[in-house]
């Protein structure tokens, strides 16, 4: 496999394009709304209409507006159909040649779509994730070829440094710096790990990337391996994502057949193999040292750092560990140059970020926006605000490690520093909107319960602290707490935050702290007054689910 072979596949693939392409979303969200039946019906409708030589029905990755699924989009007109049923299929095919479809037509020019900027998701919803040719046709694996043939490993590392890309897993550690550290170590054996253990409840970006464009992640990993000098890679994926795992396995097999993975990649001396490791449902395994323990087949418990994984990681060898979205950013950076990438976003946070928009919001789905986009634009303009005329009360970012951002602060630009200033974190990209019917104390309790269950039990502050904090929150919700309890809760939060071993414990108090900071009144309203009567019996502590 050399450049001419890649180009030939691309030519062939482009030449086989038919006049019309009907793209049917086959990501997990739409499949649960019976998108596979829709695709079958579309195929049948094409054959019945005798248009098989003109129309291609293609199963693609996520078309993003998950709440209106199953989605079908038609090229070249770009018409988007929402909530498609198999019965709509014949009319959609008819509509290709003029005519009206019974399916609901969506607006691809709404700000939900136009405000997006696609880098990571550029192929999502366009290519068939099950066919490597489809990826090669959009210049896939060209970046890997370019890196292998025209760049030395230090060049590649430098490119990443210059691009300003930061880890998309949550903490935002500069990717270039991480690569430099691993590349510098003198070891004959190194590993590259892709962290696809997307444990944050409410986040589904990585799942979508893996389901929509798995080859991009493989290519990113291969470039990383070349840059740091590794020959073996692991993808640690959640067992909860069977479809993503299936598509990855398929992608790895295809890439091996084509000589894009394995030994002597693209006729260079570079070898790289990727193995998938499946998690088994432990949130803490998203923490890098715990993840590596899990890859080694042990309990996923973190260990103190240093030594950092970059020096002593998997099986004691230097290990580069990055998130799915980080690796997905690598091929376009190599292809378009670091200057291009560094030109997007804000001064300290470069590029784009994919968010999973969910919760009490009209348009739920996947969005990718440049760093620095104000939250208000994402929530109100793109997301369409809260449903049923309710007001948005808060936005929760970063999952159980993040915090709640109140509606007053919606004008904050989305970047690592601004979110940290508000007491939240960027996190992996889950964005849950809450409206006025949601009780913030209950949300805090929900996250604390999560952390309590997911604590691995290795260090005491996290193991015992989360239980105590949960207990206090329960007490507050039961209206049995006093001001003294809130004070104690705050002290405990501070203690757990500063003394826990890993990220899970250190960030576990964040949801409590941020809700205490912005929604203190809700806590105070639930306090017991001196005569034993509750102050505000009117507000119901139960979470709101009246929609």
């Amino acid at each position, binding site marked *: 496999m050399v450049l001419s072979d890649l180009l030939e596949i691309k030519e062939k693939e482009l030449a086989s394009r038919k006049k019309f392409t009907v793209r049917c979303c086959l990501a997990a*969200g739409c499949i649960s709304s019976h998108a596979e039946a829709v695709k079958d019906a579309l195929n049948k409708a094409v054959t019945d209409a005798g248009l098989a030589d003109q129309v291609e029905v293609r199963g693609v990755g996520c078309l993003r507006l998950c709440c209106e*699924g199953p989605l079908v989009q038609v090229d070249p007109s770009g018409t988007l159909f929402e909530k498609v049923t198999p019965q709509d299929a014949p009319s959609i095919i008819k509509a290709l040649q003029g005519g009206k479809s019974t399916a609901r037509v969506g607006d691809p020019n709404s700000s939900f779509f136009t405000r997006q900027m696609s880098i990571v998701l550029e192929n999502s919803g366009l290519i068939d994730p099950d066919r490597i040719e489809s990826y090669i046709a959009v210049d896939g694996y060209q970046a890997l070829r370019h890196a292998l043939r025209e760049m030395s490993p230090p060049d590649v590392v430098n490119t990443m440094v210059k691009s300003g890309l930061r880890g998309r897993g949550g903490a935002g550690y500069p990717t270039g710096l991480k690569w430099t550290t691993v590349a510098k170590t003198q070891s004959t054996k190194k590993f590259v790990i892709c962290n696809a253990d997307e*444990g944050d409840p409410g986040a589904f970006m990585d799942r979508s990337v893996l389901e929509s464009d798995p080859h991009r992640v493989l290519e990113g990993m291969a470039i990383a391996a070349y840059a740091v000098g590794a020959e073996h890679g692991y993808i640690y994926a959640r067992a*909860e994502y069977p479809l993503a795992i299936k598509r990855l396995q398929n992608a790895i097999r295809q890439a091996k057949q084509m000589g894009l993975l394995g030994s002597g990649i693209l006729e260079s001396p570079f070898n790289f193999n990727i193995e998938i490791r*499946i*998690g088994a*449902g432990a949130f803490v395994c998203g923490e890098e040292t715990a993840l590596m323990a899990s890859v080694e087949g042990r309990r996923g418990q973190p260990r103190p750092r240093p030594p950092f994984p970059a020096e002593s990681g998997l099986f004691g060898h230097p290990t580069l560990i990055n998130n799915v979205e980080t690796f997905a950013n690598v091929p376009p950076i190599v292809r378009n140059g670091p200057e291009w990438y560094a030109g997007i976003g804000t001064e300290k946070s470069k590029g784009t970020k994919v968010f999973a928009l969910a919760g009490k919001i009209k348009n739920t789905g996947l969005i990718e926006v440049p760093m620095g986009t104000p939250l208000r634009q994402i929530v109100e303009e793109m997301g369409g605000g809260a449903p049923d005329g309710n007001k948005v009360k808060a936005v929760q970012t970063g999952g159980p490690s993040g915090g709640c951002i109140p509606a007053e602060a919606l004008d904050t630009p989305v970047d690592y520093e601004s979110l940290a200033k508000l007491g939240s974190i960027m996190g992996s990209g889950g964005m849950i909107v809450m409206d006025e019917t949601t009780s913030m104390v209950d949300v805090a309790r929900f996250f604390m319960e999560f952390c309590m269950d997911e604590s691995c039990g290795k260090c005491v502050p996290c193991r015992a602290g989360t239980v105590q904090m949960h207990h206090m929150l329960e007490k507050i919700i039961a209206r049995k707490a006093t001001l003294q309890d809130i004070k104690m809760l705050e002290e405990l939060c501070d203690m757990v935050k500063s003394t826990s071993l890993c990220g899970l414990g250190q960030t576990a108090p964040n949801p409590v702290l941020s809700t205490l900071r912005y929604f203190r009144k809700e806590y105070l309203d639930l306090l017991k007054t001196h005569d034993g009567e509750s102050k505000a019996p009117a507000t119901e502590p139960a979470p709101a689910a009246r929609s």
Partner: protein
Amino acid sequence: MKRHQFRADSLIEVLHKAQELFGFLDTDLLIFIAQHLKLPPSRVYGVATFYHFFNLKPKGEHTCVICMGTACYVKGADKVLASLEQFAGIKAGETTADGRMSLITARCIGACGIAPAVVFDGAVSANQTSDSALNVVKGWVQNGSK
């Protein structure tokens, strides 16, 4: 079954496969795995109990997984769970006495765009309410009694 060259680090993969084949992991099975991977049984048991995904008890004929991720939770997954618990007379994580149904909660199944989501026997259903979920579960119970 032991495609992984009996490597100790493949323990989790082997456990996955074993659970897929047998439905759950009983003590004999764990000891068997420990012997073949040359690992202490304590290590195998520790790993099997550490991860939520592995069951040490048999599951019911039908399983109903309720997603309790944040997005599903703020949209009322707790209400769905409560009504199912009441109907079946069991708590989340338990199986009915007749072995008909298991009720499980999940941390997040990544289907937040269609919250609240419930997985009935492996098929994800979108935008569930207490009533719609009860209908499915009632269907199971009735079919079984025929």
